[in-house]
């Protein structure tokens, strides 16, 4: 056998080097790619989460409808301000009567204030004569974190195209005092009116006020 046609096994060092380089670049890139906070004017973060009856609500299924998300914690004095005076319930009725979807979200972790079982949540809804389309249970805080929900109450409005159009407080009186309810500008009611009239929202982002969400 002559050595010219002897098959020579030769190393191919460049391919692994390049793959390693690419791999390193990608890892580096992924490590930097942090989760982004939701932004008004951008698609609302998706969710698929069960309500107190075990039914799963998926944002994708709600295309074509205006969706209002309300973070709550029944032990929080700021939530009590709006439920005690019937303010929140009235807004829920207005919205659902107009064909909008109102989802109340509880993101309190087990053992923390505001964490309730499905039955207790239903009981709270009945006691408070609340009228949401559903109460979503988010004990892991996944949905809360996706939306950057920080306070109770914290409200979000999503338009029929699935775009986040409002995030922030329920009104412009950041206190726990029910005496501040009359005369307050309700940002959510204003946002829904602007949306219905096809106007740009006067206030699209406001400072949410209340207790922290008990993740």
């Amino acid at each position, binding site marked *: 056998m002559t050595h010219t046609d002897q098959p020579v096994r030769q190393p191919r060092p*460049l391919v692994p080097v*390049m793959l390693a380089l*690419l791999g390193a670049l990608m890892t580096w890139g992924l490590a930097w790619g942090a989760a982004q906070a939701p932004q008004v004017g951008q698609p609302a973060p998706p969710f698929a989460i069960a309500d107190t009856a075990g039914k799963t609500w998926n944002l994708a299924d709600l295309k074509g409808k205006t969706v209002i998300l309300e973070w709550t914690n029944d032990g929080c004095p700021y939530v009590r301000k709006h439920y005690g005076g019937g303010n929140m319930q009235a807004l829920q009725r207005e919205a659902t009567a107009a064909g909008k979807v109102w989802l109340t979200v509880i993101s309190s972790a087990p053992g923390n204030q505001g964490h309730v079982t499905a039955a207790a949540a239903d009981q709270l809804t009945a006691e408070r004569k609340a009228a949401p389309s559903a109460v979503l249970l988010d004990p892991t805080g996944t949905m809360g974190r996706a939306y950057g929900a920080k306070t109770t109450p914290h409200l979000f409005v999503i338009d029929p195209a699935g775009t986040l159009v409002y995030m922030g407080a329920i009104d412009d009186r950041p206190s726990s005092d*029910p005496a501040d309810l009359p005369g307050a500008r309700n940002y959510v009611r204003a946002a829904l009116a602007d949306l219905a009239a096809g106007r740009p929202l006067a206030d699209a982002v406001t400072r949410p006020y209340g207790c922290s969400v008990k993740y």
Partner: protein
Amino acid sequence: MHLFRPRAPGGAVLCSVLRDALRSGCSLAAWAMAWPALLLAPLLAWGNPVSTENVTAHLLAEHNPTVPGQPLELLLSLTIRPGWHTYWRNPGDSGEAPRIDWTLPPGVSAGALQFPAPALIRVGPLANFGYSGRALHPVRLSIPADWPLGEPIPVRAQAHWLVCEEHCVPESAVLELTLNTAAAAGPSDPQAQEAFAQARAGLPVGTLAGATLTPTPGGLRLSLPRAGLGEAPTAVRFFPWSWGLIEPAADQPWRLAADRLELDLTPGETAGTADPGGLLTLTGADGAVRSFEVDATRVLPAQTPPRITAPSAPALGLPLALGLAFLGGLILNLMPCVFPVLAIKALSLAGQGGLSARQRGAHGLAYTAGVLVFFAALTAVLLAVRAGGTAIGWGFQLQYPPFVAIMAYVFLVLGLSLAGAVTLGGRLMGLAGGQVGGGSAGAFGTGALAALVAAPCTAPFMGAALGYALTLAWPLALAILLALGLGLAAPFLALSLTPGLARRLPRPGAWMEHLKQLLAFPMFATAAWLLWVLSVQTGPAGLALVLAGMLAASFGLWARERTAMAGRSWRRVGEGAALAGLAAALWLGFATAGSPTPQQSAAPAAPQAGLAAQPYTPARLTQARTQGRPVFVNMTAAWCITCLVNERVALRATSVAAAFRAADLLYLKGDWTGRDPQIGDYLAGFGRTGVPLYVYYPAGGEPRVLPQILTPASVLAALGSAVGAPR
């Protein structure tokens, strides 16, 4: 100072409401009306101090008796139950700052409640700004000079605060204080004295002027003059006055530069509009915390991008953008780094007479897939890094010296292989050795390799366009880059799918070997160019490392080549030498990362025919702007061919230099050959992720962006039209 009641749980509250109603002479009806208030604020209490469920509130006066006409300091002291906290003026993610409703005699007035430096209180993923232990809020009381001496001043302060542990309780108390008046101020008791001293220690020691807040891609940078900050801190935190400027819970990486302290902040919901000021706290080596009010001004970017995009980057329709990207990809095939690879690959098809049309087609498709997967991966990395807030653009790879070094090795080795000095094995042989090796997998690898070797060439010629693409929404950016990849793959794909085309290729022969050897020279040229870029980035030290690496790699590959036909043990030695050589080369290549930092001045400046440029710094720009001097900013990089051509053709033209001199213009040049956050920020301010960028600032006028391809006429026109524009 009288003390009504030390504690005020339920029953005591009822008593005090009752007493208050009786004292104010209210009817029973009025008392009944007070009931809802009682239910809503169950912890309202009267006295001084007053203890609620979680807080003991106390209103202290610095001097009693006090002198009319002289301001008097009062102090609201909240002693908080362990584990609970109250809030700063901006409470952070949730909560509410304390406030006071005053009832004062006519003429007497109280100033705003002051807030000492807060602490960061983390609550799960959220954060609050507030106080634990004891919160001390000074407040200034003004007493008219004509207040009758000896007449006491009744002070009634209804304080409201929110106090939280895991859950929150709104509490309030009415604090009453009677101030006596006299011609000379009385002494304050030692306990009050201590509280006042502690309160003052927590207040800001001064205001820092000259702070700037600059948007960076995905973040905000707060930069403060270091002078006045005192000793180097061990911890730094910025607390914004307003909600929405930053994410309260986010970390704030900081660093001390020669004359600045810089913090990287995570923008909040209203980062573009919120008050940019706040409070900066510095923890010293001894643990003591000092705070400064920060009066930050926003620096240019925020308002500039919308008006900039109009002249320089007309909004392309998606089909047009995709078409142009495809065309760009086609042109890439002719680039010196890609053409040899492609030419050899194409000729190999002609040489493979035995391949069926189907096999040929499969090869073409696999090759295309290789190109596209590489481009998709690169795009994903770029977008992910950008989402993470790092300022990079297309061409960022070339800012990293080890990448440049390794690409130089790749081109050297490919050149050696084409020249016939070394034989590469397996699939690489398919690439360089004129065979379609390794089937579809080999073709896929070749595609990825073609895209990889194209990368250094795309940046210099198309960096700006691709950088623009990357600022679009990610599906658009991906579509544009994939169109570019498709363009790159198209000629070979067409060749492999069209048997007629393949048949027209010249017959293989000895000329192919000559062509192959000839094509080694564009490869060596690319390697030489990369070495020059590296020399700009790392100076002679880095260059020496990589040249040594090239020597090691070449020797290793030569040794293997020499022993390839020898006996087994010699072959082992040869292969060992090759591996050792390449390993040494890689190690030397990565060592360039530690070489001296990039030199701003070296880059493309060289002997200047035109106006001498000064290195760009934000300070130089601001200074010239405030002096009313026109400024021309040129952002460039050694690896940006477009930039070099523009300088040679337009900026160094005598007519342009004369116009610059006539206008007493400051010419600032930023060199982005290496990474420089200041330049990255500047580019981001104009919505760019890459160079070139030319901006002309007329004296006192709005900046205008020049096109990316310059001619002397276009520069003169920009200068001229700006001069004629109304001031």
